[in-house]
């Protein structure tokens, strides 16, 4: 149990430090235009990376294709059909759950 609480305590401090360091270093100084061009693209680049990681990441590291991939395909179809976010998320869960039920 000690390991659990040490993990919680250190990650609390570490996460806070990681989030706060940017604003503490920069204060309210504006970034130069070239840097803004980069930060403007952070959201798509990071979201795409997260998407790959959350869909294909195996437990404990590595790559795996499982029902989550089917969920993502279903989600993308729903997005292209202009479904609202709520529906997109439910469609993905249903596709993954359905696939697991029948395999």
């Amino acid at each position, binding site marked *: *149990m*000690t390991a*659990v609480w*040490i*993990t*919680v305590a*250190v*990650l*609390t401090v*570490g*996460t*806070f430090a*990681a*989030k*706060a360091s*940017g*604003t503490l*270093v*920069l*204060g*309210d100084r504006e970034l130069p*235009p*070239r840097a*803004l061009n*980069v*930060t*403007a*693209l*952070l*959201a*798509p*680049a*990071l*979201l*795409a*990376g*997260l*998407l*790959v*990681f*959350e869909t*294909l*990441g195996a437990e404990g*590291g590595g*790559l795996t294709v499982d*029902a*989550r991939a*089917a*969920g*993502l395909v279903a989600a*993308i179809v729903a*997005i292209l059909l202009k479904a*609202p*976010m709520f529906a997109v*998320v439910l*469609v*993905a869960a249903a596709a*993954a*759950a359905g696939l*697991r039920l029948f395999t």
Partner: protein
Amino acid sequence: MHQDSDIRAGLRAGLPLVLPTLAIGISFGVLAEPVMGSVAPVVMSITVFSGAAQFAALTVLTAGGGAFAAIAAGMLLNARWLPMGLAIGPFLKGGPVQRSIESIAIVDSSFALASRGDGTFDRLKLIGSTLPQGAAWVGGTVIGVLGGSFLGDPQALGLDAMFPAFFAYLLFEELKDRTRVVAAVGGALIALALLPFTPPGVPVLVAAFAALIGLKRTPAAAR
């Protein structure tokens, strides 16, 4: 300069994320309870408040790894808050204490929602959209810890497919021009290439480097 939207607009933007966040919080609680007991996962969701880092640490603890390995896994996933914090940092307000507290509101979805697409960020949209998600995350963890045995296997319900779907939705909203599509494809390819060889967290962090193609573009302000 852009006007921040009001906090209610942020809250509204965050509402569609409540159900997926609740579901992921539940699955965190269900999976964490046998390993961490019933109190630590809830404390963790309140104080760490970073889903990916919490899952990464939990995976290590579940596999019998020690605190050091669990912390390292969590912090690797946290590394992406550094570039995100630098990007959004100048748009937070107040002295160092207030700014630090506001920075807790940086979460992936809210970061994307608050991004105006020209490199600037909407502070109240960030904070407003994080609030309902925070409540759902902690509430979900409590439900998962307490009700795990009733809910059964979160994977059988497809709960783990909700987060990718929700990132996909946010990503498609982002793809407004060619440069952004290139950044997204670049980020995805980097993550895909690194995923088989690197510890969790590294693929996502390095994917952020795809944003550097912005250096080759004419200033956003000039468009």
